[in-house]
């Protein structure tokens, strides 16, 4: 509403900017070339008096400028006599111009703004979480809550561990590095955690296995020489160092030791095929892979939401009195398109909140709103 008010106001001002000068009768003050030539004559006189130019030159220049002055004065005289119909036409022209302004401005405004603009889309400030879409709100709220919690209790290693994969998915790699460093410090060193750190460091460097990242993988391998991910990344490090043969050896060894049906075999084969064309090419991507790749961003988002929602559900199992939590959980399941789970969550909520009529009423209301059966 405010926006439309502002738009109407601006259009009004624009129209006024055209109508106002049309309503004035007096011609605007204006200069003419006669004044310029008069000044040039004065200047010649000044220069002559100061001795900058000689008398003969001054005379010649004066004649030349005077000729221009006379011509300009003649032209001005011819113009000054307006045609007989000038006055009667004036009103007609003004009206035409005014009507043009009244039509053109709103028409151009609507014609361009309506197809191009997004008047109903709210603006958003980075700090203003309230105006996010519900799906984003749940993620943002959860992250914000965990972050706030960790600000109060920076020694909660478990919190950092929960947060770090979320940061990775959001592409906040520097934050992920920080979180994973904290995890190592607070919860102790394991091969897995070192590998996590190395992965985050590499992601932060846009996939380059930096010296720092490589050191993390090396520490992981000292703790657990069989760590698959660390070995895989060390292969990348070798490849990036310009030692493709070493990389190929490492990956081949990894494949040879792979347990049957290991999910990571495909990606290792792909990497191997890149450095060693002679190796058996990996099977073509499956239909699911293609689908997943095509929708990477929504996919990632769904995975992330899922992780969040699962944790929320876990917490509600322990603390069933939080009605806001239940409502959010139901909404989240609906956003993920899982109506059955939303239905189940609603049932759980009704059981957990059985003693509180007010809270039950809110659950019922939302169920109605979401189209769930009571």
């Amino acid at each position: 509403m405010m926006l439309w008010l502002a738009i109407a106001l601006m259009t009004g001002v624009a129209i006024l900017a055209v109508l106002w000068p049309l309503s004035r009768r007096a011609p605007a003050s204006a200069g003419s070339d006669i004044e310029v030539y008069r000044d040039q004559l004065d200047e010649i006189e000044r220069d002559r008096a100061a001795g900058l130019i000689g008398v003969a030159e001054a005379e010649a220049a004066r004649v030349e400028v005077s000729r221009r002055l006379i011509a300009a004065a003649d032209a001005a005289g011819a113009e000054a006599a307006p045609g007989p119909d000038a006055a009667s036409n004036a009103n007609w022209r003004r009206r035409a111009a005014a009507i043009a302004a009244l039509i053109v401005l709103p028409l151009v405004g609507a014609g361009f703004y309506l197809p191009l603009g997004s008047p109903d889309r709210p603006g958003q400030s980075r700090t203003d979480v309230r105006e996010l879409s519900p799906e984003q709100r749940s993620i943002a709220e959860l992250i914000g809550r965990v972050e706030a919690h960790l600000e109060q209790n920076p020694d909660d290693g478990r919190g950092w561990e929960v947060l770090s994969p979320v940061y990775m998915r959001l592409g906040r790699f520097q934050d992920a590095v920080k979180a994973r460093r904290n995890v190592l410090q607070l919860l102790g060193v394991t091969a897995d955690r070192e590998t996590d750190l190395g992965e985050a460091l590499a992601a932060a460097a846009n996939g380059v296995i930096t010296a720092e990242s490589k050191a993390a993988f090396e520490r992981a391998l000292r703790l657990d020489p069989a760590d698959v991910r660390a070995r895989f990344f060390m292969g990348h490090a070798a490849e990036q160092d310009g030692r493709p043969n070493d990389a190929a050896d490492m990956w081949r060894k990894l494949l040879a030791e792979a347990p049957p049906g290991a999910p990571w075999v495909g990606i290792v084969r792909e990497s191997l095929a890149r450095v060693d064309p002679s190796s058996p090419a990996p099977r073509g991507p499956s239909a699911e892979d293609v689908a997943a790749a095509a929708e990477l961003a929504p996919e990632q988002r769904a995975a992330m939401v899922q992780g969040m929602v699962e944790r929320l559900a876990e917490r509600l199992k322990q603390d069933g009195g939080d009605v806001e939590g239940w409502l959010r959980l139901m909404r989240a399941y609906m956003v993920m398109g899982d109506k059955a789970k939303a239905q189940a969550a609603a049932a759980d909520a009704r059981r957990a909140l059985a003693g509180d009529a007010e809270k039950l009423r809110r659950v019922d209301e939302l169920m109605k709103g979401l189209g769930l059966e009571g």
Partner: protein
Amino acid sequence: MIAEIGHFALVLALGLALIQALVPLAGAHWRDAALMNTAGPTAHAQLAFVAISFAALTACYVMSDFSVANVFENSHSQKPLLYKITGVWGNHEGSMLLWVLILALFGSLVAAFGGNLPATLKANVLAVQSWIAAAFYLFILLTSNPFLRLDNPPFEGRDLNPILQDIGLAVHPPLLYLGYVGLSISFSFAIAALIEGKIDAAWARWVRPWTLAAWMFLTLGIAMGSYWAYYELGWGGYWFWDPVENASLMPWIAGTALLHSAVVMEKRSALKVWTVLLAILSFSLSLIGTFLVRSGVLTSVHTFASDPTRGVFILMILVLFIGGALALYAFRAPALKQGGLFAPISREGALVFNNLFLTAACASVFIGTLYPLALEGVTGDKISVGAPFFNLTFGPLFLPLLMAAPFGPLLAWKRGDLLGAAQRLMAAAGIAVVGIAVTFAVSGGGPVLAPFGVGLAVFVIAGAATDIVERTGVLRAPLAVAFARARGLPRSAYGSAVAHAGLGVTLLGIVCVSTWGTERIVSLKPGAKVEIGSYALTFEGMVTRQGGNYRELIARFTVREGDTLRGVMNPSKRTFPARSTSTTEAALLTRGVSQIYVSLGDPNDDGSIAVRVYHKPLVLLIWLGAVVMVLGGLLSLSDRRLRVGAPKPAKPARPAMQPAE
């Protein structure tokens, strides 16, 4: 909401531009004062709406409103406030918005300060200005709209190209655009005059302040850009003959030629046809320049194909304005009356000489810039035209210009006395010879031509001084007379002398740096020393630091001359994770007008780091010369003659202001 208000304001500016493009034109045709009067208020309103639009986009950047696609693509919530603001024009869409903002600003300025213009000319100028504006509003709204929104606003933006995250971005593009776009006023004046069919000496005077202002901004913008490239890119070079730089140099050369030929037109009513053509060409070149840079044609010809709408639109604007203007010119120019006659050796002759060489130099840059593009477009061959080409073409064309610059102002109008001028320049030539001798003695060998370059620079500066000395007669006449003459001398005379001297200063800097500049590329371990010039730099060590949106590796050098500590230098390398790029921040130590320049290469595994160290004698003169030129422009702009014809605002008599008896 803010973004939408900005969007609508831009649309309204288009509507106003359409009205301003037609109504005042019709008014001028029918000599209808009311219709002509609409030009002023609509120009002001246009500026107001574009300003609202620009402010709205800036607000979105400051608040990191990532629901605006443009903000998401070019900003980052953790970026320092200054770079959030400068980021507004650090991208194609935003910079086009700045472009039209300045266009509207100039329109509004003409409306406000054009009181000395005949009503019809003013109305026509503002109408033509509005055609340009309308074309650009359309271009922005239809192909480069910065206000488009995203359905799902992301949490974080993609950040601005780190090289642009520098104070230079705050100053360089606005200055350059003020210059580029300022030339649009000269263009509008030329077209308006062609429409009216009335081009005379007065026109030259009216167009002069606008051309001068645009030229000053362009000079500053180019100098600033050159200095930015010098310290940010880490190569220590100040001019690369890069197409983007050439794109800004061409309108500058044409604008310089225009300034000079307009003097002839104003004084003698001659060279009219040529001056009008230059006014058209200057802005056409700045249009081409803007688009070469902005459309991405320069990086590859094929960018046109990748964004067909934008490319085609650009071509249409170019064809419409340049082609239309030249067609109108061809149609009207033959009808223009010949002006005053003059002998080849005369002030006019000297200015024609200046114009011929400037235009030829401009053509050489034009060919050097566009030929590789055309060749790649036609045959697909990639060739690169760099410094060698320009040294062989641009250099020889500028040399006679520099030698002639001191002569021009000493020649009389109509028929000059070359021998007399040469005699009066004997003192300047003498000083130049002394300069050459001293340079030979001090440098002790080295390139033979360099001392002559210094001599030429000294000659240009001393020649500019000679001009003022001669005009005031300070050496011949009594002091009181000379003083009176000095006061009577128009400011524009001082302006041209100062600007010519600035040219000499820049030349001096270029010659010294390219001849006696030294460079060392070494790998240093902490504690190691490198010597350059008379200085010794000690590498003290490195530290890392976390900035807002980057991480920084800072090296510390102490600079000693003999045993005296001259300063500490901290070059650094910055890594920006959001774009995963890094920038080199060179460290500069200024001694007088010379500089020591240190930039970091990559660190090695053994703890050493590659370092480039340059000693740049008198390097600052290159840019100081440009500043001096601009000061000359300012002096010239303050000349009272440029305001002649402005009707004095009616002021009620105020007895209190009467001088006391």
